[in-house]
């Protein structure tokens, strides 16, 4: 019997639908296990089972046994398991009970009745372990998002649990903050011997830290070494896909492993120029000069100049809090703008009424559900037609182009993340704005979902829209962008073709570029290899 996390023939059904089907695995103590699977595969359900939130909070039918550190978990309430399992959710702010770092860290220990002297010692240890010493007396609202996530992890650890369960802990974080969080976790596994089970869509960030992986697909689970599991997985980080494409043994999971194999492929590709993307420099559309946005006590955007032409696909990157959202909202005209000029096709959107403004620029906010308020997606589409004064059926037609297979009469909040995003996008596009802005659209999307979004946006750009997307996701950026603008502290620090900007920045370079300099995506490499296979004429001619 292991003293980590063990599932024995666990099945779970909710409202008649099977979510998990005879799942068995046995994580040894101190293992760092990565839970992978497509959206909707039941990853969150499995994680919540470890500490009893499923089925206690959700209902449903469960069978089989779950044991953590040798203790039977099934049937126990989450509160009674707080000393064995720490649970960290996606949005740390939603789970904070107090408003100060130290109090938050001590909360679980208080609940468990830990002796005050021991509690003080534990809190101090955790603070040091997670590098929170500088902020220990601060209010939670004043922390950066990476610090918040580390506080949430620390708060789950103070009671000294045997297992730590994390549901997409880095999905809202920029690459640097995500790295801070993950390396802190890595250290915990070594120092405290905690068994960690972590679900994440951005596999490229996590795969290198994990000891093993658990693939959940269609209710079934497969557990094994990271490389083996990812090789068979429908979702895999680019480096694994590259390895599959090139037939590297393993396949390699980390950049360093991949580089060792890459010499041969690099030589093969050396003669092949990347397919020069046809950059149709469309007629200018957006002209922003010296845009400044002040929030109380902080200048979020500081004199940004940005011009965009039709057909351009711009990725706006930068750390959390670098002013990306504020800039998008100011460009659209609904958000606050303290200074500077914005002209879309010669008109300042802020001077228009909201109804006319959205015909110039459409914005899909970071929480797409904010745009939706009808009971069904069909009603939502009709409402969008009415709002925009568009002919009946316009929105439904756009939506059908973006996504298919929506169940009739589904509530917008019951759609999957990708479908909901498509609906919000269709609602926005109903007004036919030439400028399309999206704020962090990739949260909660798996790799195929992101690829589909990139393809959709590229089609829209080809149809004459200018598309500006703010994102943390370097892999999405590599798939999507023709141009990258990097913001830091509200100012533009880099602006240029995606290929140059991304390659020059270690923080924003996609995995493929790190292995094969000059190439951004697996698709690009595959296309180049295909052209090579078709005949060397192209390469020689180029």
């Amino acid at each position, binding site marked *: 019997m292991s003293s980590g996390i063990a599932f024995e023939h666990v099945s779970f059904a909710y409202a008649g639908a099977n979510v998990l089907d005879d799942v068995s695995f046995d994580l040894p103590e101190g293992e760092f296990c990565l839970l992978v699977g497509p959206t909707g595969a039941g990853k969150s359900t499995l994680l919540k089972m470890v500490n009893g939130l499923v089925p206690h909070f959700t209902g449903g039918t469960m069978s089989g046994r779950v044991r953590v550190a040798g203790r039977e978990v099934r049937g126990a309430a989450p509160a009674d398991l707080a000393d064995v399992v720490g649970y960290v959710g996606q949005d740390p702010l939603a789970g904070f009970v107090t408003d100060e770092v130290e109090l938050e860290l001590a909360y679980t220990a208080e609940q468990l009745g830990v002796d005050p002297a021991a509690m003080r010692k534990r809190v101090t240890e955790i603070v040091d372990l997670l590098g929170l010493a500088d902020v220990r007396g601060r209010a939670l609202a004043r922390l950066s998002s990476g610090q918040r996530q580390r506080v949430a992890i620390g708060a789950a650890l103070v009671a000294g649990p045997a297992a730590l369960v994390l549901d997409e802990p880095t999905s809202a974080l920029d690459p640097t903050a995500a790295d801070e969080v993950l390396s802190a976790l890595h250290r915990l596994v070594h120092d405290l011997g905690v068994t960690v089970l972590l679900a994440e869509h951005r596999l490229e960030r996590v795969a290198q830290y994990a000891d093993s992986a658990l693939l959940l697909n269609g209710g079934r689970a497969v557990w094994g070494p990271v490389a083996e599991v990812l090789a068979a997985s429908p979702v895999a980080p680019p480096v694994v896909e590259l390895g599959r494409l090139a037939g590297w043994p393993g396949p390699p999971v980390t950049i360093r492993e991949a580089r060792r194999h890459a010499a041969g492929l690099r030589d093969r590709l050396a003669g092949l120029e990347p397919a020069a993307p046809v950059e149709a420099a469309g007629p200018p559309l957006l002209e922003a000069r010296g845009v400044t946005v002040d929030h109380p006590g902080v200048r979020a955007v500081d004199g940004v100049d940005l011009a965009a032409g039709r057909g351009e696909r711009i990725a706006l990157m930068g750390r959390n809090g670098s002013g990306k959202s504020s800039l998008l909202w100011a460009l659209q005209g609904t958000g606050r703008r303290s200074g500077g000029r914005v002209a879309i096709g010669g008109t300042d959107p802020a001077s228009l*009424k909201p109804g006319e403004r959205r015909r110039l620029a459409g914005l899909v*906010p970071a929480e797409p559900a904010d745009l939706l308020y009808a009971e069904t997606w069909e009603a939502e589409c009709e409402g969008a037609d009415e709002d925009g004064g568009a002919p009946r059926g316009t929105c439904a037609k756009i939506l059908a182009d973006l996504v298919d297979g929506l169940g009739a009469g589904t509530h917008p909040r019951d759609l999957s993340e990708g479908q909901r995003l498509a609906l919000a996008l269709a609602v926005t596009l109903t*007004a036919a704005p030439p400028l399309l802005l999206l704020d962090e659209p990739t949260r909660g999307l798996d790799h195929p979902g992101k690829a589909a979004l990139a393809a959709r946006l590229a089609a829209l750009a080809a149809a004459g829209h200018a598309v500006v997307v703010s994102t943390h996701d370097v892999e999405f950026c590599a798939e999507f962008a023709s141009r990258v603008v990097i913001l830091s502290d509200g100012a533009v620090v880099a602006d240029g073709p995606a290929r140059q900007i991304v390659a020059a920045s270690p923080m924003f370079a996609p995995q493929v570029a790190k292995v094969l300099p000059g190439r951004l995506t697996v698709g690009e490499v595959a296309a180049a290899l295909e052209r090579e296979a078709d005949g060397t004429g192209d390469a020689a001619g180029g």
Partner: protein
Amino acid sequence: MPPAAPSEAPRVLPRRAPVRAAVHPAAWWGWALLLATAAGRTANPWLLLLVAAVAGLVVTWCRGDEPWSGAYRVFLFIGLSAVAVRMAFYVVFGGSDGPTVLFTLPSVTLPDWAAGFRLGGAVTAEGALAAAYDGLRLATLLVCVGAANALASPRRLLRSVPAALYEVSVAVVVALSVAPQLVESVGRVRRARALRGNTGRSPANLMRTVVAPVLHDALDRSLALAAAMASRGYGRAAGVPAPARRATGASLLIGLLGLCAGAYALLGTATPAPLAWSLLAVGAAAAVFGIAFASKRVPHTRYRPDRFRALDWAVLASGAAATAGTVLSGVLEPAALWPATNPLGVPELPLWAAAGIVLAAAPALLAPSGPSPTPLPPKGTP
């Protein structure tokens, strides 16, 4: 507080104490409530304005730079709207009357089943003044609560409640955090609505496009918070037998009801004072018993509890001075506390009460907020 390891705490505490805000949150709330009690015992506009000014002065001098420090302004605004609402009610529904008619509104007499009610009619200066005094009193009470909020977050206050009330206090904390979240949520949903070009102002439209999404959001958040709290051990049964839990619960409830009834009787003018005081005493005794009984059985501990020190007593005493002043004036010069509005006249300033309230400004000198106790975020951190 459970009696665990008292010998350990003093050794570590003195070194770290300066990190905490200087005054105990219970002292701030006590001070503010005493000030509010003083305001509740008078309708004299000079005294009420003085109370509001003292509260404002102390807030300005003593508050930190935490997120809740702006609460005073919010409550001031709510107070002003209370005055406005009270005036509007007087104009529409009438109230006390006098000989000086300012203007006359078309009047409607309600049918028999609502006899005694008139809508509209003559608006008199005397009635308006009485309504204004009344509204001002309510506004001042609100301002006092706002001051307490700005000086000490209610969450920190609740950390100091006895262990037996722990579960209740967490429920209250969660309820308190809903309001600011709703405000933020409404802002977000309204902006998103503008993105859709929907600017309709009909109630049905607002209900569908603003109220429903905001409530949806609030519900999602509460579920997330409940799940997070449960996974962190909130509400562990931890082996307390059910009969004991029920007994403590009942004595707590009775005690709190007694306290409330006593406080209400004391603040209202209709109940004879001896009855009010005895109600309060009985209620307090029941509450103390229930809390002491329950605290012994609670399996929770507290991380670095705030201590009550001489400074905190001084703050409390300055608040008590305001209440004492009004009580004294109530005995010596009751007419000045409740100035007549018919006939019209400039109310006098009751000296004892005024002196007491001025004393309540002492915390501004005793515990001014120095340079920010918490370090500001480093520049480069996003």
